């Protein structure tokens, strides 16, 4: 019988038709009419609000420019990076990207994003409309900027006002030594309450401490001319030591914090097990509001004097926070540059910025909007003030190596920390390894 083959082919043909029918419809960019594709981060803390905001922006953009907006989303920093890589390598992807600000230097190094000219800046509304510090991560210098700030998420600390009152501490600490002293007073290990909560096992927070201590102490992670890696310098080593000392020498944090990620540290604070929690952004507000410490917490900028010093040494920067937030960049392969600039102008205007920050709990990048936000929400005012002390992280394509290198130093030291101490030689060795990687990446940039 020859029906076998015919039957088989027939089945496959029907399947193929069905497949094309079911699946080809749906998904993929819609043609017809101009449209702008925008990549944004999903906000799991405000999902409905974000969806509503996306709708509002789409409507307003349509009214302004007559074009459609299509939003694509990513859930994590890793996914964002992968999306950027696949798009750059294939020349096909969203037109406009919302980038994390610390990631902007690496994005810049790929040359996958358009450098904004003076005329472009004028079309967006001018650099003056932004909080000056937020422009710090837009580019290596004002002539080569790719990122337009759309939101700021400055880092500060949050403290338990009730515990502070009970311990007789009037104001949050302004120096790291004062922080340690206050934490010791607030320590009640017998009750499981500690002066502060730390997250040594987090992948993202520890390097920020090391960065902050180093810059406040006058050191650098990378030389200012961006040619030399300085991770093996004594200042960085001292910063790592100071960060570990918080636990091993001063004992102001729960010993379990060696294994904590930022969620556990935040949970310790909201459950009343810690009096202070450094390295938080406005992202923490939902957890704080929905917990037992509601009404008993306040934000404050982080201390500006490095550990072990009474005042900032010469060359030390008043680095209270990294420049943190989101930048918007236009892809090089995009053919909708005018539409993108129009979108940028819309989304960085005062009203849009107020809407955006109120809906998603971030702080505006528009200077006037930020001022109004601080007035309307006094609780966030210390974070707005912290933004004024923001110092950009090194604007180099090797930044991923720096960040990962520092995180690795901490990760590999965790077993030692669990036992209550750390080996300075081992730390030096890890820093030297990290330094090598950063240096080789810097060398490759110079090609």
């Amino acid at each position, binding site marked *: 019988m020859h029906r076998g083959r015919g039957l088989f082919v027939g089945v496959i043909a029907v399947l193929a038709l069905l*497949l094309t029918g*079911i699946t080809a419809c749906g*998904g993929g960019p819609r043609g017809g009419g101009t449209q702008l594709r925008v990549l944004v981060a999903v906000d799991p803390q405000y999902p409905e609000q974000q969806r509503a905001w996306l709708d509002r922006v789409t409507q307003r953009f349509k009214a302004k420019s007559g074009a459609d907006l299509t939003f694509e989303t990513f859930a994590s920093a890793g996914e964002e990076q*992968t999306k950027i890589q696949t798009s750059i390598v294939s020349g096909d992807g969203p037109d406009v990207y919302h980038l994390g600000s610390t990631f902007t230097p690496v994005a810049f190094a790929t040359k996958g994003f358009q450098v904004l000219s003076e005329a472009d800046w004028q079309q967006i509304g001018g650099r003056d409309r932004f909080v000056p510090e937020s422009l710090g991560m837009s580019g290596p210098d004002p002539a080569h900027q790719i990122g337009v700030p759309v939101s700021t998420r400055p880092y500060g600390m949050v403290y338990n006002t009730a515990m502070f009152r009970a311990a007789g501490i009037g104001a949050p600490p302004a120096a790291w030594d004062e922080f340690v002293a206050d934490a010791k007073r607030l320590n009640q290990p017998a009750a499981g309450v500690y002066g502060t909560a730390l997250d040594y096992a987090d992948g*993202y927070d520890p390097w920020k401490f090391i960065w902050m201590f180093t810059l406040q102490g006058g050191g650098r992670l990378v030389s200012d001319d961006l040619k030399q890696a300085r991770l093996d310098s004594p200042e960085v080593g001292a910063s790592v030591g100071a960060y570990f000392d918080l636990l091993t020498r001063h004992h102001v944090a729960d010993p379990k914090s060696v294994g904590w990620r930022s*969620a*556990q540290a935040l949970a310790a604070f909201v459950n009343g097990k810690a009096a202070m929690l450094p390295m938080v952004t406005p*992202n923490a507000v939902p957890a704080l509001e*929905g917990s037992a410490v509601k009404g008993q917490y306040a934000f404050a900028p982080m201390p500006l004097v490095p550990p072990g010093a009474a005042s900032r040494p010469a060359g030390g920067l008043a680095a209270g926070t990294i420049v943190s937030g989101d930048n918007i960049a236009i892809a090089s392969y995009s053919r909708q540059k005018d539409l993108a600039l129009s979108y940028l102008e819309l989304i960085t205007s005062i009203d849009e910025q107020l809407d955006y920050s109120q809906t998603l709990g971030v702080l505006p990048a528009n200077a006037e909007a930020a001022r109004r936000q601080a007035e309307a929400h006094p609780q966030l005012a210390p974070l707005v003030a912290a933004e004024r002390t923001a110092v950009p992280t090194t604007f180099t394509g090797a930044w991923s190596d720096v960040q990962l290198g520092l995180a690795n130093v901490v990760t590999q030291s965790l077993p030692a920390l669990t036992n209550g101490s750390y080996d300075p030689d081992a730390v030096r060795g890890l820093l030297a390894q990290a330094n090598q990687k950063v240096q080789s990446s810097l060398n490759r940039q110079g090609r």
Partner: protein
Amino acid sequence: MSRRGVSGRGVSRRGVSRRDAQAVLPARLNGVLIALILAFAMVPILFMVLMSVTPDSDIAGGTVWPSHLALDNYVRMWDTVALGSGLANSVLVAAVSAVVATVFAVGAAYCLTRFTFVGRRPYLAVLVFLQSVPQVLLLLPLFMVFSSAATYLGLPLVGTRLALIVAYLTFALPLATWVMVTYFRKVPESLEEAGLLDGLSRFGTLWRIVVPLSWPGMVVALVFSFLVGWNDVVIASVLSHPDTRTAAVDLQVFGHSIEGGAIPQYGQLMGASVLCSIPVVALYLGFQRYLVSGLTAGSDKG
């Protein structure tokens, strides 16, 4: 000599008249083992269910018993991400790719086990080799291949369900083929020769004799191929757009930590995961009745 009782089944020494030959282990041992294995498998699942109704700050704080029940996790999770459409996409993509992969695998495995031809052994070897290729390696190049289909062939593939189906079915193919090869080899050739003598074509013997006898293997191939598409995150995250997103990618939203202080939504993550497991378990529950000893059911009387 013959111990066959009236029922046609053997009478064991212990005198139990209907002995279940398929039960290899003694009954009591069997029961204990089942209890142990079920406990081993299900206790962490019970934790998962418990976590799904625990407030996130409790989970992050390390307490095992919730301070209060957070049943609204099951309500909120449908809103936090488009979980409904994600599940639908996942089921559609995984099911279609599983079926097509199994069909192709059956055909290929039949040729590989019944005929010799040039390239037979290398093909089998390559299939095993392809199983060892890590997906992360293929991620960028795969995206390049798919997006160049759009540029050069005018077929917009990226962001469609078709792209995901094609990708998953291809990844599942070596696995499914090998599974079918293994189970086809256990089907005796004499049965097919009987069929050929009756006038069936080779394809006919495949369709009417070999396939029904290797249903267990096909169920396994289907399950494995389904899981390839069901579990994958990496490929889906780059090849899908918001409306073709699968549930596996949606789950990332719950679990990923946000920089600067936020507690991931563990409760919703656990709830959504429990939910995501139900379709597969239900499918297997339905299909496992086909895991019958095919060599005694439906064999030809010579």
